[in-house]
């Protein structure tokens, strides 16, 4: 068990982390590359940058919209995201691993905050999962990954909570820790290939929409030529 855990914490972690980083860089760069291509083709190159920046900030910090539209769903979703982002990055135990591994460290969450955020994230994920099942519209739209993600995301949080806050026998601890590490690594390596890609792509959304509405100057001629419709009546 200990060997397996060491393997999961060592090479397997490095692999999944690299997959995540490279995968996210790839999709981010693809988006930016497509955007530059579109910008070069656009007939009108004036973009409402300020407007897109304001909208993007509003999307990333959805404080205003949270209380005007679907308040319960929005607040739950926001709290869930806060925990989901903060805990893995700012947990003291994680930072210590980074420090012992490559010697870097940063500010960490006080322990009671981390516990609270962990519980909040678990509750949030369950609420979102139940909300999805309970909402007719959401059920109609949902794919398999939409149901699986909240369940997968709470695995490392639950196992991490038990490892850090309860007294477990050494075997139970190792087993729980193994689940914690493996589920975390599964999440990291799936991240760029599933809808969780939105974690790096959402900040680009408003710029991409603004650009997509900027058409190239000679759409008519070029599409007509492609479809053999030159001179065809309306």
């Amino acid at each position: 068990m200990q060997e397996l855990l060491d393997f999961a914490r060592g090479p397997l972690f490095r692999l999944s982390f690299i997959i995540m980083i490279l995968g996210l860089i790839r999709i981010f760069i693809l988006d930016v590359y497509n955007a530059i291509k579109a910008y070069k083709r656009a007939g009108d190159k004036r973009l409402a940058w300020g407007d897109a920046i304001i909208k993007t900030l509003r999307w990333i910090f959805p404080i205003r919209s949270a209380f005007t539209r679907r308040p319960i769903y929005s607040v739950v979703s926001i709290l869930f995201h806060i925990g989901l982002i903060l805990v893995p990055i700012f947990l003291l135990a994680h930072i210590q691993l980074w420090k012992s591994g490559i010697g870097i460290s940063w500010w960490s969450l006080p322990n009671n905050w981390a516990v609270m955020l962990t519980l909040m994230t678990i509750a949030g994920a369950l609420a979102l999962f139940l909300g999805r099942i309970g909402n007719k519209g959401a059920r109609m739209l949902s794919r398999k990954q939409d149901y699986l993600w909240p369940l997968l995301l709470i695995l490392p949080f639950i196992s991490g909570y038990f490892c850090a806050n309860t007294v477990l026998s050494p075997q139970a601890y190792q087993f729980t820790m193994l689940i914690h590490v493996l589920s975390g690594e599964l999440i990291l390596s799936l991240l760029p290939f599933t809808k969780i890609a939105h974690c790096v792509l959402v900040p680009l959304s408003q710029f991409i929409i603004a650009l997509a509405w900027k058409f190239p100057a000679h759409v008519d001629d070029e599409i007509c030529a492609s479809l053999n419709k030159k001179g065809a009546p309306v």
Partner: protein
Amino acid sequence: MRTNVITSEEREKAFAPTKKPDVIERQKLDVRYHVEDYDVDNRPRRFLEAFAAILKHTNYRLALEHFIRVSTKCSRCAVQCPIYQATGDEHDIPCYRSELLLSVYRRHFTVGGSIKGRLTGSGHLTDEKIEEMAESFWNCTACRRCTLECPAGIDHALITHLGRFILSEIGISPRALVVSTREQLEGKTGNTSAIPLPALVDTLEFLEEDIKEEKGVDIKFPLDKENCEFIFIPAVSDFLMEAETLMGIAAVFKATGGSWTISTENYDAINYGLFYSDRILERVIRKLYAESERLNATNILIGECGHASRSAKYYVPVHCGGEKAKPVLNIMEYTYRMLKEGKLKLNPNVITETVTYHDPCNIARQGWIIEQPRYIIKAFCKNFVEMTPRGTENICCGGGGGTVSIDEIRPYRTLVGGKAKGDQIRATGAKYLIAPCANCKKQLRELVEDQKIDCEVVGLHDLIYKAIILDDGQTENQKTNRKG
């Protein structure tokens, strides 16, 4: 926004078939809007060819690539969609509608999707799916409210816009729009309402006489004057339906001494291309711009019309030279400027009834024209009440995205599309409903009639016409005239 789901009786009325079974059989298309006969063979293949050509020559791939990655299927857009709120049918959720096209893109235009599709032998484009898109994309009024809500920032309206464009390339577009556009681009009259030039000239002379009679002032509608500051192009239907709006605009120019002209070769700013085809959009824009060049006007001024203003404002620069292109303004921007500069005087004692203002989606959603008309209204209307929500978050009249021109779907527009708007108008209790848009006006008049709401739908310049003070002697003139 909360509105009740329609009753089963209303549903029956709104979704009643509009076509004979033999037409549906012949066209292999069971949708409520009428379509001209088209080649029904190999539809999926031709759809994919058109899709490929469009992807190759436009910027849509950028958006589609992004959207297929970020979509989280949360269904938040559902709370913003007036159509879904009225029907309660999950097929009307914007994200569901978008997925119809996104799934085709994923299956046929991405490497992963085509490998997966080939391995499982599923997901390819079928005739049924084309039919579902043809129905769904035209159920939407393209109001773009859903784009405000999507936490991932997906622009569902862009996808609907693209879906309609691809469908149009295989011949599936509402006949009402295609026939009008054909007349505008290839017909003798050169406008969507097929108004011949002599009829236009007669109408304008008639309006001039009317103004003289009512206001006692000589006001001309200048035709083909070169080197003016503004070439004024309204939605051509205004010449038939909105006499008071045009008289109001002429009066504003008279009062402010603006230099303007109407063109005899292109007096129609309607651009149905915005609703169904980027190719048509481009042609109409080029035609409009060519006329402004011929008369050497400094600015292009569009009348009270939402989609015509949006298409000119955003696509004149795209197709006619980028930032060097002539500026495009909406008439309300001009009137607002004149009022602010003190060149326009309005009598605050003429309009005493309750007035409300409907924001046309095409000029309000992006935050372009929201406060200007309100500034004007508040300057002379004593009892102005706002609708809730308003401005960028306004609710569509129910006839957006070109659907208002499709007469055969009127029950759908006024019972489903306009349901939320009807509730909103009723709540204001207004006597005058200002809707500065040719499409909104037509839709809202039908809406208040079908939903039995007691209010009069007018343009902003209709009310300005009633209250404008043309010069110091004018009030006296008016009095003398009335006595006479």
